């Protein structure tokens, strides 16, 4: 995959967590990869190319994200955390696609699906990036239905 695509995915994820969740990433530290999975969100998209964006939260990401979005110090419910995390996945996907395909491209995004387990996919992701926070880390994976569609410059 073109490195510019990877940079675009990273930019979209960073923008989402900073502006939607008011969360600033930090450098990974020892043990930061050992956090258990909290939630996983999957967004299917169709357009000039099609695929899925997966957002996985490890540690205690979703509570912080949701509380910040709601502007509350009360612990959010699991329903609120699923809602907020689904919205975050949607925002990452919606911001990534025009960055990759150009703003003239039209994509249809399906409603995000939330699960407490990592989905089993037949192929590894075309691209994967991570962001680390005080509360844990997130991994964003891009799966493409057409092989090689983002490999050229």
């Amino acid at each position, binding site marked *: 995959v073109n490195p510019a695509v990877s940079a675009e995915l990273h930019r979209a994820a960073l*923008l*989402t967590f900073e*502006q*939607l969740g008011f969360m600033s990433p930090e450098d990974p530290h020892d043990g930061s990869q050992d956090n258990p999975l909290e939630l996983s969100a999957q967004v299917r998209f169709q357009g000039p190319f099609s695929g899925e964006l997966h957002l996985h939260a490890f540690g205690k990401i979703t509570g912080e994200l*949701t509380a910040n*979005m*709601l*502007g509350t110090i009360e612990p959010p419910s699991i329903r*609120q955390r699923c*809602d*907020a995390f*689904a*919205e975050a996945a*949607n*925002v990452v*996907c*919606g*911001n990534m*696609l*025009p*960055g990759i395909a150009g*703003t*003239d*491209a*039209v*994509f249809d*995004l399906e*409603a995000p699906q939330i699960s407490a387990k990592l989905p089993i996919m037949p192929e590894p992701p075309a691209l994967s990036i991570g962001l680390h926070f005080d509360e844990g880390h997130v991994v964003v994976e891009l799966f493409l239905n057409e092989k090689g569609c983002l490999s050229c410059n």
Partner: protein
Amino acid sequence: MAINVLVVDDSQVMRTMVIRTLKLSGLDIGELHEARHGVEALQVLKDHWVNLAIIDINMPVMSGEELLQRMRSDVLDAGLPVIVVSTEGSQTRIDRIRQLGADFLQKPFQPEALRDLIVSKVGPR
């Protein structure tokens, strides 16, 4: 005069976030109404006097674009100021939304950007 606002988004957390932004904006906000999709929004518009609608695009039951088209074909709601707040990044779709007389703000948004758009639509309050 206070602004009565309808916030339409299938995400309860996003509706709360938008409403919180409105309350902190310093604008004179009156009644706040919420709807989860276009069909609920049309019912709210029938039942209440609304000065501004803030709507998402990707929603179940009835999308924001269809809601906007229906509003524009209704005599009572044809001139209602509308701000679309969405993850939509396609300029083609954004142009279509603007042709229907709505402003567009991409998620994630800065609170100041939403406030400025509201002022541009309904004037300072």
